[in-house]
């Protein structure tokens, strides 16, 4: 039996060596990425010091043009959004940002059903490569599993499934937006579908998920405690109108109670009926993103330095 444990020990020791060496190499790749997802995440956590920060999922990443926000508001802007992410990722980015400074403005894009399902901590696993270097994000990532803290001792595990997006920018740049786009991911394609005259009806209401709501409340509270002026936005989708989901109703309640301007575009016919603005039913193309951002910023601008709630909460035309 001693021989068995000795051999197991040798294998584990060799694995530990490989793990450490691989970790050094992978960390180097992460830290020197010319652009792409890891460049953007690293910037959000470590270097972002812009006045305005946009936080959201792929809708946040694609629909909000940082340059337009900068030019209109006369403030610097970084789009810290990331595709496929939700409130756990937003919380983690929040912690990374607030560990260094408090933005003057945060534009938080919330999808029309974001608060109706359990927060997806597993998706926030894209932040694993930053676990060791950013203690502030560990409590969020530890929610993934009971023994996540133990698994995170491994550098190979930290980079689990990330190789494609880690290595891609070294060969093809700009696929997630150029560095000069300041986090925005422009989508040049146009959707070909023509609306057939009727919008999809409002989906049935689904109850709020308490954990999702709690996470959202924490995000809002923490920014407000640091004096950040917040704006909540629900992006438009093509071909369907959503004006009163449980999530949107909760956002309205939050807007009233916490004096946060809310802009609901998910039932705005100026956007949801225009296929030429979209790359797919959920995301705006470059033209659509520019128009949307300009429209949003025109409304945000007078409120940036004011404590007044916006006069029109729902932008239905």
């Amino acid at each position, binding site marked *: *039996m001693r021989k068995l444990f000795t051999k197991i020990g040798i294998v584990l020791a060799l694995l530990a060596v490989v793990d450490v060496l691989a970790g050094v190499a992978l960390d180097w790749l992460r830290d020197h990425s010319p652009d792409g997802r890891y460049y953007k995440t690293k910037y959000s956590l470590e270097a972002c010091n812009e006045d305005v920060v946009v936080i959201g999922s792929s809708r946040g990443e694609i629909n909000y043009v940082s340059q337009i926000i900068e030019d209109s508001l006369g403030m610097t802007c970084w789009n810290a959004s990331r595709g496929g992410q939700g409130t756990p990722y937003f919380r983690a980015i929040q912690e990374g940002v607030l560990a260094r400074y408090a933005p003057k403005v945060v534009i938080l894009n919330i999808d029309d059903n974001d608060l109706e399902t359990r927060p997806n901590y597993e998706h926030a696993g894209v932040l694993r490569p930053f676990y060791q270097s950013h203690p502030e994000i560990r409590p969020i990532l530890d929610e993934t599993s009971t023994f996540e803290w133990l698994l995170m001792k491994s550098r190979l595990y930290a980079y689990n499934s990330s190789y*494609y997006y880690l290595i891609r920018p070294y060969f093809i740049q700009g696929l997630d937006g150029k560095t000069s786009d300041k986090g925005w991911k422009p989508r040049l394609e146009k959707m070909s579908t023509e609306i057939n005259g009727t919008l999809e009806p409002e989906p049935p209401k689904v109850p709020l998920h308490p954990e999702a709501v709690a996470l959202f409340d924490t995000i809002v509270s923490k920014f407000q405690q640091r004096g950040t002026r917040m704006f909540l936005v629900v992006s438009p989708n093509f071909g369907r109108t959503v004006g009163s989901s449980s999530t949107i109703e909760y956002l309205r309640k939050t807007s009233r109670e916490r004096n946060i301007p809310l802009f609901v575009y998910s039932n705005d016919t100026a956007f949801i009926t225009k296929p030429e603005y979209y790359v797919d039913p959920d995301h705006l193309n470059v033209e659509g993103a520019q128009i949307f951002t300009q429209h949003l910023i025109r409304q945000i601008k007078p409120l940036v330095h004011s404590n007044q709630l916006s006069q029109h909460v729902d932008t239905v035309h």
Partner: protein
Amino acid sequence: MLFNSIDFAIFLPIVFALFWTVGRHSAKMQNWILLVASYIFYGFWDWRFLGLLAFSSAFDYFVGAELYRQTDKRKRKMFFWASVAVNLTLLGFFKYYNFFADSFVNAFSFFGQELNLGSLKVLLPVGISFYTFQSMSYAFDIYRRELEPVKDIVPFMTFVAFFPHMVAGPIQRASFFLPQFLTHKQFSYDLAAKGLKIMLFGFFMKVAIADRLALYVDAVYGNVDMHNGWSYMMATLFFAFQIYGDFAGYSLIAIGCAWLFGFHMSPNFNRPYFSTSFRQFWGRWHISLSTWFKDYLYIPLGGNRGTKARTYGNLFTTFVVSGLWHGANWTFVVWGAIHGAFQILERVAEELKFPKIPRLLAIPLVFAGVCLAWVFFRANTVQDAFQIVGGIFTNLQGKPHIGDIGIFAFSLMGILMLFLIEFVQEYYPDVNLLNHRQAPVRYATMVAMLAWIITLGVFDGSQFIYFQF
């Protein structure tokens, strides 16, 4: 408790240590340790069904004793059928009540009649399909006078509940496996080392290959209307390797785990996708189940001893029942029927002396036929399955769904790696890196495999596919 979980990583070393220290003096102590450990293992799934497991085991133990004791033919038959009835009733109720009730109601409504049988929220005890079959094989083998009953109930209950294989096989015959619980185990370094290596390969197949493929398969099969024939083809191909990696991986982990405790289990897979006929496929896929059905259903039905029509009927019935065993859904019944049809067609082709298909053509043809059947196995409904099959042949406009390129690329890498390994095992069996005579090669292989698992494995605790059976 899943094999690919931290809970099991803690559980196994504890049981291993207790077995070889506290249990080192007697087979009785070893059995008690394994029995308690197995019930704890099962209790992690659902402690409410521990009683059912105990009842099923105890019932067949006492039936076995009576079957051996009785000399009267009628009474022996009575006890035999009692074992069949009780085990199949348990299986039928917990696994099939809602399926048959819903099917019955749907059949009535087809004729315009409304029927309300009420549906019970019957939970499916994990592993019931496996441990009832294992337990029944004990009664069957005693009835056939192929096995003597054990005098002590503890080894028998341990044989049924033995945690490495209890929830998803391989199903072990009592005549082969039960005697091993009557002998005192001595620690063997070679067996334990071999066991760990086999487990490592099993985890590689499950965590790094099967679970990664599942991400793509679930995206397509879960949204059938959103995809075209190319995506269906890709997802079906991926599923063929997903289910193989998942189930063969689990079997390897179970077998390797058993070796850690000095138990030998019969193999369950033998590179099935290199089969040159459907008959050969079922000699290489889920071997423990196919031999169980052959010995306890096909042969008692008459096997191939009667007319050709009778033989074909027996074959078809066996495969349909096997399909139903896999799950309470018509998709599994159709899957079984397709394989039954393949078996019959092959026999007819032999009868008519069709020319033998060259191996290089036969392997992909059999693989294609198996994949066609997998569509029904994986689809949520028969309707979806037909839509997928139809789409593969008629809906080939557009591009295949790729989804996340990273996931897709790693899925392809996984299939390639698995194919490469199996190709070498099939045609160059002497090449065995895990057991290479040079220690650096062995260590490098183990470390590489572990690194691959950690780097590309899916760690969200996804269940083995066959746990649902």
